[in-house]
């Protein structure tokens, strides 16, 4: 009995396949549109996941607490003297001064992020030099040495040379020599970054001695970040205190908001497709009515005809899923998600050329299946009930 039932399902599946083949142009059109919808959804999901993962991965290198001076709601230089006040707070392991700024290249219309910091002062485990692909970080007494990100190298066309110059505020030129490059794994943060020692950054931006833009605070126990941040706010009321979890949360919220917005647009496209599929499945051509009536006279039950429709939908949606997800993977890995880059990464003037590695967990695949295959099955099988109840006697004459 079980063997016969299995054989029956195989026969019905075989008939469903031949039925799809007979209407191959129609089936192909549905398959391609469905695959395109899944491709868009899966690409979006993959690129959002990849960006979030990457952000999480590289934010490990950011300081646990960043302290900035605020005046009239705007950031201004912070005196190095604050360093001593911070050092007295129990639980702080180290305070490292930093100059953080941007440099707009008017020739290339690119915006670089410049960071001046004496890397050797950073505590072990948080040091930026562990993120280098080649070379080394400049020491405090090495003048004009920099480490650059991937896009900076490309933008400055530094393939054949290692030197370049930037303008100081008084329009005099300051020359730099590249002493290292960041790894592409940290692209999301270091892509447009130029790191130099504190003295060079102070010279480039003409920041007076004894002043920096931020103080980077490293704590002894990461579980106490929030407590220490509160202590800093109490000790120095005029400063803004940014913690690493806050920055991480900001990144997640930004990607979450953007992907949410994108997903709503894509789900609207999916809904339109499902409505179209429902409409198509509800209407029966005279040939389809005739075929159903013939099958019923020949001993097919209504449930057998429904099973044919079900298998047809499973085959179409299964193939569309495989096609859509594969195309999405290729789109994200080999074409760097070029369709969604303007939506997800459209802030920088220097377009980040990220090397994304998509992550697709079983949960994500199930989510895509739930949002695509299940509505499609419902939209095609439920109206098929109406088709399957075509009376068998309509195959007979008058």
């Amino acid at each position: 009995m079980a063997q016969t039932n299995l054989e029956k399902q195989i026969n019905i599946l075989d008939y469903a396949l031949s039925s799809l083949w007979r209407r191959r142009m129609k089936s192909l059109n549905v398959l391609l549109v469905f695959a395109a919808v899944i491709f868009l959804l899966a690409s979006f999901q993959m690129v959002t996941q990849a960006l979030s993962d990457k952000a999480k991965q590289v934010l490990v290198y950011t300081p646990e607490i960043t302290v900035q001076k605020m005046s009239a709601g705007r950031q201004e230089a912070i005196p190095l003297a604050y360093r001593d006040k911070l050092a007295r707070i129990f639980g702080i392991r180290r305070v490292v001064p930093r100059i953080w700024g941007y440099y707009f290249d008017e020739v290339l219309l690119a915006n670089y992020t410049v960071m001046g910091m004496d890397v050797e002062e950073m505590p072990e485990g948080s040091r930026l030099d562990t993120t280098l692909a080649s070379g080394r970080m400049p020491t405090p007494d090495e003048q004009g040495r920099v480490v650059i990100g991937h896009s900076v190298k490309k933008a400055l066309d530094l393939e054949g040379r290692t030197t370049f110059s930037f303008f100081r505020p008084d329009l005099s030129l300051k020359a730099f020599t590249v002493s290292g490059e960041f790894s592409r794994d940290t692209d999301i943060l270091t892509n447009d970054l130029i790191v130099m020692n504190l003295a060079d950054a102070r010279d480039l931006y003409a920041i007076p001695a004894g002043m920096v833009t931020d103080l980077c605070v490293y704590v002894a126990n990461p579980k106490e970040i929030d407590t220490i941040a509160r202590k800093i706010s109490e000790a120095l009321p005029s400063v803004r205190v940014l913690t690493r979890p806050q920055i991480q949360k900001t990144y997640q919220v930004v990607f979450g908001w953007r992907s949410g917005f994108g997903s709503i647009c894509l789900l609207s496209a999916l809904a339109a497709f499902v409505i179209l599929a429902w409409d198509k499945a509800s209407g029966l051509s005279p040939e389809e009515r005739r075929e159903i009536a013939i099958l019923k006279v020949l001993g097919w039950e209504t449930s057998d005809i429904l099973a044919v429709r079900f298998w047809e939908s499973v085959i179409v949606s299964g193939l569309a899923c495989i096609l859509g997800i594969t195309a999405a993977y290729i789109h994200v890995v080999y074409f760097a998600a070029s369709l969604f880059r303007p939506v997800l990464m459209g802030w920088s003037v220097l377009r980040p050329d990220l090397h994304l590695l998509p992550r697709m967990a079983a949960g994500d695949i199930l989510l895509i299946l739930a949002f695509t295959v299940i509505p499609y099955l419902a939209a095609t099988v439920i109206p098929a009930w109406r088709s399957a109840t075509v009376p068998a006697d309509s195959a007979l004459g008058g």
Partner: protein
Amino acid sequence: MLIELSGVSKIYNQGRANEVRALTDIDLGVEQGSMVCLKGPSGSGKSTLLAIIGCIFPPTSGKAAIAERQLARLPDRFLTLHRRETIGFIFQRFNVLPELTVLENITLPLLPLGVAPKERKLRAQELLERFSISHRAQFPAGQISGGELQRVAIARALINNQPIILADEPTAHLDTTLSREFMEIMQQLKATGKTIVIASHDPLVFEHPAIDRTVTIKDGRIHVP
């Protein structure tokens, strides 16, 4: 009696404004191994009677017993199961699916029975050879001649070795030669013990010597001249 109808009536859309009485008080018995022709003009109720005998729907009233099974009040699912085992249908215009191959068309009734592909092919080939159309097995049914199409339809009606063959106006779209050929095949089937009921108003059918009895239907009733 293999087919026994007593006081059978059929009313479509009963109780509604578009109610149609298709059959009234039909009494009919068909013995096993006989060939009966239901004769009458279009709209006389022949196809309705054939549909009741073919277990497509039960009568509105009266008793209908096909192969010792009472059809009245039998749920749709059981009617289908009974039809699968008992009835082979030959339709007007033969009703094959033109995009399927001849072999696929013939084996259609076997798919919901869970018959394995090898067994299906074996049974179909036997019939294809019997009706001399084995060379057309892999042709799409839409590309074969009318005579071959007729034999495909007969082969499909016999694939599950059902004891009763019902044919609905089988010669309506055939020329004289093919109509005669059809009746010869029916005669051969009768000789093998099949019970055959043909609905037709074609003299080539109802005047054929193999027909044991002709039943005239007029306005939904059996007409006794």
